[in-house]
């Protein structure tokens, strides 16, 4: 796949003539705005933040900025990019890169960046450098049924793997490995099949040891952390940690006279008695019909009554309601204490 040119000045929203101070200011402002940790649930923020870091990595360093500027101002973001002659040999001399990289939060720069400045990993690997692979975090969207019954879910991640071509050294015949551009790693989709234990909750974390990024040298791989995200359910709403709430539509006579109704639960329908004289909005509790806990037991299911009337009355229904209206002494509104009619 062709490498696309990145306009680092546009990413930071500064002119090419910006001073180091202006660049720092612009970066800080945008970093605050797009930091993934202050934008929960926004997947685009993470990509944006990665771009910002990459742009700042280059433009905040006088040497790298000069080299980037040497490419000239006529490149458009997104066009296919091939490094001009002479870049290959320029890879040396960035000896401090490994450490600076290791400290970065996202750790992963674009192919464009790797093409221009990459290759540090190869140099390190050659010197016997070993570092444990980075830990990876990912979201695991689950619906309530999965959580209730336990489930096996497959997920596909863009995972880094040790480059097979160079064995992770980044070098092939003492030249930069053409497959991984000297990074020693390649990205490709990896499908994992994960067993979800019963009793996980929103924000629960599942650790898969050794499934993170590969290490350099002989160091072990990092871990993969999956953070559970509970998808909205069409019927149930999670209350607290173990309880569920369900809105149950009922006819006026069902609450007035009382009676048995069938209520859906995560474990299938159950029968429930509505006491005569129940009110709309009232919550009835079905003990133990909430979410199962990790050990024993389960939370409760709250059934909130919602009184519905037939949207279109038949002649018979209309007659009965009119009769009720004429004979009932029921006064649902009493505002007298507040001076209303």
């Amino acid at each position: 796949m062709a490498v696309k040119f990145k306009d680092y000045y546009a990413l930071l929203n500064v002119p090419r003539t910006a001073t180091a101070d202006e660049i720092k200011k612009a970066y800080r402002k945008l970093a605050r705005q797009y930091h993934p940790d202050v934008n929960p649930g926004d997947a685009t923020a993470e990509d944006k933040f990665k771009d910002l870091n990459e742009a700042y990595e280059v433009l905040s360093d006088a040497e790298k900025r000069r080299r980037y500027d040497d490419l000239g101002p006529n490149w458009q973001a997104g066009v296919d990019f091939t490094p001009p002659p002479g870049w290959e040999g320029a890879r040396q001399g960035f000896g401090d890169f490994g450490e600076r990289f290791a400290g970065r939060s996202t750790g992963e720069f674009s192919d464009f960046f790797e093409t221009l400045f990459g290759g540090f990993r190869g140099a390190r690997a050659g010197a016997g450098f070993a570092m444990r692979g980075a830990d990876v975090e990912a979201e695991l969207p689950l619906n309530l049924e999965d959580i209730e019954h336990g489930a096996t879910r497959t997920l596909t991640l863009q995972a880094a793997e040790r480059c097979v071509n160079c064995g992770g050294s980044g070098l092939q015949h003492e030249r930069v490995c053409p497959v991984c551009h000297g990074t020693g790693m390649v990205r490709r989709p990896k499908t994992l099949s994960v067993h979800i234990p019963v009793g996980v909750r929103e924000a629960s974390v599942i650790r898969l040891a050794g499934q993170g990024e590969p290490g350099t040298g002989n160091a072990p791989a990092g871990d993969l952390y999956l953070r559970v995200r509970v998808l909205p359910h069409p019927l149930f709403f999670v209350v607290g940690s173990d309880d569920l709430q369900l809105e149950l539509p009922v006819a006026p006579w069902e609450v007035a006279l009382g009676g048995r109704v069938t209520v859906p639960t995560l474990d299938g329908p159950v029968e429930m008695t509505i006491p005569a004289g129940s009110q709309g909005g009232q919550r009835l509790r079905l003990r133990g019909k909430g979410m199962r806990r990790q050990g024993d037991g389960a939370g409760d299911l709250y059934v909130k009554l919602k009184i519905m009337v037939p949207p279109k009355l038949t002649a018979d229904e209309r007659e009965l309601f009119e009769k009720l209206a004429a004979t009932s002494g029921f006064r649902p509104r009493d505002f007298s204490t507040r001076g209303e009619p």
Partner: protein
Amino acid sequence: MNAEWNMLVLSRKDSRLLTLEELADAARLHPDLIQSFVDFGLLEPVRQDGQHLFFDMEAVLRVRTIQRLRRDLGVNLSGVAVILDLTQRLRRMQQELEWWRSRR
């Protein structure tokens, strides 16, 4: 697509609690720093057994988040505490909103 299949079955070991030292190891930080997060109220052990504190797996990601906020945005520990509380609240409200919207 040339997908690679890995079957993973979580053992009980993965859901057990972590000691402070194990948490530090998982987050690759010094235990003293973890202790200072606890002292600051940024991190709450799920169980305490005399002097020993125990954490769940969520604490690992919380520690990683704390470190990212400190390093990337230069926020101090008080600021981190506020951000963590606010984002948690934001998250909960987003979910409630999502649920209401999905019912339309």
